[in-house]
């Protein structure tokens, strides 16, 4: 087979996010002939954002399929193909257009395994750019992490750098569940150093595990996708002022890796969440809620003000928030307090030993 022209292995092992996704898909297409890609402009055009560059040339019409303009149509067809034993990758030109197909994603894909009592799995990947781009206006800039992250039956991942992108797309394709992969258009062209293990054809990043991108002691900053880069920049600026941030790259939205976040918060006692989605009912809101509900270890939390959840403006707004540091809570050892309310999970119980308290 001719070498895929889209693969870029530069001598410095720097790979753009676009090429990392391309590599990941190429390797999985090669590994399993049941895997195929469908969507608008994915074939000869190499993808609307050139993410599938070279794949049609290498794999042909049967594996890389251009569809008419109907997201509801091709998402439904992809789900049917997955139910019948194939492993489709369904590309949305942006996730804003996935709203045309959301019934297929949620009702046909996400809920089917459960509703069939485990008989019918749907090994499908929905991928595409998510969140804000540059000047594409409100209808093309929405972040869908909170919407899809809300639904049981779906796995939702949100890569930041090239390593994330390749590892997560490969894990998503090999996963037998429906997986939503939220990429970011502005990150496609950004190069990152590729660690040697990422060059392997079996390089996988486990879904459901966050990564601590930067160790720190004073404050935990949790983020996903492009804002992770902003957080790291802010951390670098703050470090010069003596504030050491621990930056967590969530990588997976659902199932969320609360253990990593909790362990970090236990260490730093301060938390800022940073995301591109809207604040109400958002990813950060969920993290804050879970932290407030209590960490799984036997600890009681008392707080003076709520943990902060912001929609980022840029690196400097993140820095300002962390420098203020009025938001904090302290962790204390378990004890019975008159202010303890009854458990949510088991009314009447106030032992506070389970996560629900």
């Amino acid at each position, binding site marked *: 087979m001719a070498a895929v022209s889209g693969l870029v292995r530069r001598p410095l092992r720097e790979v753009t996010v676009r090429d990392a996704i391309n590599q990941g898909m190429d390797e999985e297409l090669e590994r399993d002939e049941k895997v195929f890609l469908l969507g608008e402009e994915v074939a000869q055009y190499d993808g609307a954002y050139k993410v599938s560059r070279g794949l049609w040339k290498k794999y042909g019409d049967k594996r890389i399929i251009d569809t008419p303009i109907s997201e509801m149509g091709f998402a439904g067809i992809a789900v049917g193909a997955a139910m019948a034993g194939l492993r489709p990758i369904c590309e949305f030109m942006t996730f804003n257009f996935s709203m*045309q197909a959301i019934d297929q994603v949620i009702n046909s894909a996400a809920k089917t395994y459960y509703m069939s009592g485990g008989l019918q799995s749907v090994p499908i990947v929905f991928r595409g750019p998510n969140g804000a781009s540059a000047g594409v206006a409100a209808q093309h800039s929405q972040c869908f992490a909170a919407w899809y992250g809300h639904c049981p039956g779906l796995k939702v991942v949100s890569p930041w750098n090239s390593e994330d992108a390749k590892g997560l797309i490969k894990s998503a394709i090999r996963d037998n569940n429906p997986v939503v992969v939220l990429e970011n258009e502005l990150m496609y062209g950004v190069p990152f150093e590729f660690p040697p293990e990422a060059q392997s054809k079996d390089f996988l990043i486990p879904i459901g595990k966050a990564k601590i991108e930067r160790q720190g002691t004073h404050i935990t900053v949790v983020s996903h996708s492009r804002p992770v880069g902003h957080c790291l920049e802010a951390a670098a600026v703050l470090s010069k002022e003596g504030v050491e941030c621990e930056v967590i790259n969530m990588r997976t939205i659902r199932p969320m890796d609360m253990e990593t976040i909790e362990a970090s918060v236990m260490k730093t006692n301060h938390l800022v969440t940073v995301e591109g989605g809207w604040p109400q009912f958002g990813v950060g809101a969920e993290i804050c809620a879970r932290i407030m509900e209590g960490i799984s270890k036997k600890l009681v939390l008392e707080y003076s003000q709520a943990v902060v959840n912001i929609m980022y403006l840029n690196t*400097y707004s993140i820095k300002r928030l962390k420098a203020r540091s009025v938001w904090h809570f302290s962790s204390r050892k378990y004890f019975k307090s008159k202010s303890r309310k009854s458990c949510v999970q088991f009314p009447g119980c106030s032992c506070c030993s389970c996560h629900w308290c």
Partner: protein
Amino acid sequence: MAVAIAAGKVWRPNRGLSQAAVLLLWRPGARGLARSHPHRQQQQFSSLDDKPQFPGASAEFIDKLEFIQPNVISGIPIYRVMDRQGQIINPSEDPHLPKEKVLKLYKSMTLLNTMDRILYESQRQGRISFYMTNYGEEGTHVGSAAALDNTDLVFGQYREAAVGAAYAAKRANANRVVICYFGEGAASEGDAHAGFNFAATLECPIIFFCRNNGYAISTPTSEQYRGDGIAARGPGYGIMSIRVDGNDVFAVYNATKEARRRAVAENQPFLIEAMTYRIGHHSTSDDSSAYRSVDEVNYWDKQDHPISRLRHYLLSQGWWDEEQEKAWRKQSRKKVMEAFEQAERKPKPNPNLLFSDVYQEMPAQLRKQQESLARHLQTYGEHYPLEHFDK
């Protein structure tokens, strides 16, 4: 299986098409709100009669097994008024528009063309972020717009929503039509199906105007659909349909004018499929040489362009000449450049406008955010390009 058509007449779902029974959902006088169930007319029951009684279709029986063949070899014919040299073919179809109106058509198309050139270049120079040109399709926009009233509602895309607006216009007895423009690619969207069906069942005064320009980004029509284009879908929904030469501005005008008159008078939808060709790239993010030949593009640019055809007409009428052409080109370019420079000089809106006019009265949390931003800019303002924004 030829479909008999008189020039200029709208092709409508017809009964008795060869021996196959075809759905007929159009009946004269069956429009308007007054009749509650116009389609459920009771058939006279007679057990001696061997006529079909099915509620779902009005058709004859046939005792020969025959599938209806989709007719894509000789599809719905294309209505035109002018030939490619701008000569009127059938004088009875000439709209006989007055000189000022035709000059306005011409100047609108050429001004649009000029604006496209300048804005495309400005994107290439990084002065604007994104642009989509209209090259080759000027006739469809201008011809149809010229046939509408000032109070008519225009939707670009949003096919389902356009039907809703048309329904509201009907309820309000507003004497307005809704026109919804979309491409042959967008016609694949599910809401096009729903839009057509609802427009017909709810009897809405709407014109569905499909610009079939041959490509949806790189996807050619052969991959977008297998039927006879979009016009052939209309009768399937019970919609009056026509296919026109989109590069013939008079044909577009005539079809839209007649469709508008009848849509409002009879409260029914119309589907116009304007055949044309996308001479430019899909957008500034596209390079169409990747999927089509330069020869193909050149053919349309040189041999069948809406602006050229109208210019030939104007010349033959003695209403235009080379001098006026030169002068108008200069003038239109100057017009666009002045407007562009004026726009470029304007600063971007004041950041405070992020918060105003979001709600009728600014709620507390927005005010807090506004104050927070003001404080933030006081400390970190130097890191933002504030000089480009209104003070």
